[in-house]
């Protein structure tokens, strides 16, 4: 094993020192993932606006105005729906959150001094806490603005004070001293608002701004929605698995040629004359290819997760998909490496085979928009199974049993192709 590790370490070191090879192995797949993700729609949730669906259970003028305010905002992309539809949209990942404007919202909004605060319920996928917090903040912002409007509307405030005074007057359980204090307070407030109204009528410009703070503008209740990710969250969820596939292709092509390079440059003779078996030599090459593909895949997933909104189902599923794909492409690399006798031949044959694999397997056009006959044909391409495994782990929300199909095929392909490659490897090229 020490010798296999030494062989793999040598190949990885050489790859890292080859700037061109490093670029096309790591940076190129990343560029593909970002580029195609961006041109095919980027964040599928509507760019910078967070897509929400709103349910109006209050159906008052106030709730309607509040929803209209949200719809007019630049931060939110608002769609109205029934509660069932709203929950379904969030569960399927089509919307970030649903917002239910609860019954009584309008009444509560008109009475800021007593009773419950106007209430909304926000339902969000637990995996999207960041967006949920942003949605809540945006709702608070517009609720506060609405309250500010209420306080700057002296007619409405005087109506509220009158209603408050009437409620105090008719309150049965209130002791006389408290009642007297409230009546004094609301009497003074009533006088103040009357003066404000006169000033507004005189157009002095004085009355702008309410300044009565300390009230809760909005009460937010939370609901959790377990999402069915049977649809990509955004275009990057499609383009990153494709980018990873291109990384696998690049590495398989690079390492497939490297074995021929070892032969043409004479270093293979040195390896062959060392006291190691051919399987050890080829296993070292395969291990280097495996490590390289795993590294590229992990880097792309991390970049996608941190910067482009990828939300894998679980680390374990992603690891399963990555390792299976890496095994498959180590085997494919081994087979490619024995197909050509010269670097040019090996490179040409390798890319020809890999490009066809990519075309059939969804490396260029997403699998889910392929016509049915091409989807059937794509089953012969390991790229298809690699992309499917990655998509299963990223947005298709595959169960472990569902993951076993693509991952099992990939592992089988890897083992089979490696065995064929080892057997077909021309240990001593007859020249």
């Amino acid at each position: 094993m020490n010798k296999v590790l030494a062989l793999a370490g040598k190949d990885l070191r050489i790859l890292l020192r080859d700037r061109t090879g490093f670029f096309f192995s790591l940076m190129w797949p990343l560029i593909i993932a970002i580029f195609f993700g961006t041109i095919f729609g980027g964040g599928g949730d509507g760019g910078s606006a967070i897509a929400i669906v709103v349910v109006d259970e209050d159906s008052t003028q106030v709730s309607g105005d509040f929803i209209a305010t949200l719809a007019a905002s630049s931060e939110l992309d608002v769609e109205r729906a029934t509660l069932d539809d709203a929950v379904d949209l969030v569960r399927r990942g089509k919307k970030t959150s649903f917002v239910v404007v609860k019954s009584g919202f309008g009444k509560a909004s008109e009475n800021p001094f007593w009773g419950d605060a106007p209430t909304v319920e926000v339902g969000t996928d637990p995996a999207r806490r960041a967006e949920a917090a942003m949605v809540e903040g945006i709702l608070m912002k517009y609720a506060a603005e609405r309250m500010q409007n209420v306080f700057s509307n002296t007619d409405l405030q005087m109506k509220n004070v009158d209603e408050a005074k009437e409620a105090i007057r008719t309150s049965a359980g209130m002791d006389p001293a408290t009642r007297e204090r409230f009546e004094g307070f609301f009497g003074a407030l009533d006088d103040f608002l009357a003066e404000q109204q006169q000033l507004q009528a005189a157009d002095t410009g004085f009355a702008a701004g309410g300044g009565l703070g300390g009230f809760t503008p909005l009460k937010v209740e939370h609901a959790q929605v377990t999402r069915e990710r049977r649809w990509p969250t955004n275009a990057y969820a499609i383009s990153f698995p494709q980018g990873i596939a291109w990384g696998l292709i690049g590495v398989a092509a690079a390492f497939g040629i490297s074995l021929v390079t070892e032969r043409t440059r004479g270093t293979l003779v040195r390896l062959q004359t060392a006291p190691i078996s051919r399987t050890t030599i080829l296993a070292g090459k395969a291990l280097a290819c495996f490590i390289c593909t795993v590294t590229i895949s992990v880097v792309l997933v991390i970049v996608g997760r941190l910067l482009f909104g990828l939300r894998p189902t679980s680390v374990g599923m992603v690891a399963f998909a990555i390792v299976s794909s890496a095994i498959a492409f180590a085997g494919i690399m081994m087979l490619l490496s024995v197909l050509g006798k010269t670097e040019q031949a090996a490179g040409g044959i390798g890319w020809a085979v890999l490009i066809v694999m990519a075309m059939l397997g969804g490396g260029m056009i997403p699998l889910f928009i392929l016509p049915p006959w091409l989807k059937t044909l794509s089953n012969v391409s390991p790229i298809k199974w690699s992309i499917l495994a990655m998509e299963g782990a990223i947005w298709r929300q595959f169960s472990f049993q569902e993951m076993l199909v693509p991952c099992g095929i990939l592992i089988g392909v890897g083992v089979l192709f490696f065995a064929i490659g080892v057997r077909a490897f021309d240990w001593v090229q007859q020249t």
Partner: protein
Amino acid sequence: MTGPATALMLEIENLSKRFGSICAVDELSLEIREGEIFGLLGPNGAGKTTVVNMAVGLLRPDSGTVSLRGTGSPADPAVRAQIGVAPQALAIYGDLSGEENLRFFGTLQGLKGKGLAERVTWVLDFVGLSDRQKDRVKTYSGGMKRRLNLAVALVHDPALLLLDEPTVGVDPQSRNAIFQHIETLRNEGRTVVYTTHYIEEAQRLCDRVGIIDQGKLLAMDTVEGLIKAHGGTSVIYLDRGRGDERIETVEPMRELMKIHEGGNVRTFKVDAPDLECVFLNLTGRRLRDN
């Protein structure tokens, strides 16, 4: 061959190898003794590299056997571990440093830890590359690469060293340095098989030489023995005032003394036979023409 070293290091018996219609090696037999430097001299395409490749287990012979110290065939990795090979093509990685190359190949040979570090240090010092050990090999001169190629063959302290045309493409200064390294190895009692098509190298370095052409071993002996047996006569060219004279003799010193006693010698030149003459007499062709 100097000294009493008679134990066999490498025994090659009736070795044959064909590539299609071409017979690369034809019923070739050799015995390499411990502690000697054995030269395999022949033109390009004579079959020298094929013999080396079969001797190290890289090529499977069509017939015949190779045995190292009587322990078995080099096709067995354990036997192969006793051999160090410096292939004709530079078998080193340009993107790794000299030290990294040595550490890598040393690890493949089973070295590790302190033992590996000590061997790497020793061999770098031996070939004079200690001051460039951290530099990438692609920045080395051709001669330095050749020395590293030799160092890699030596890193695991092999019992038998196979050097396949180790001075090809090397400037005279580096060639001389390689000669000195090989002479040092001889003084240490190392067994070396040295293939070359340069007569001067074989004559300078080798205790015994095998002449190979078209896959056949034509003759094998010490340099003196080969010349005596196959080199032909020496030729003395002289001018005694009566025109150019040419005298062939098997004992040029005795003939010169006799000429000197006759007096009136203006100029003279002696062409002693060398391995070139041996090759010419054995094949009818000059080695240099190949």
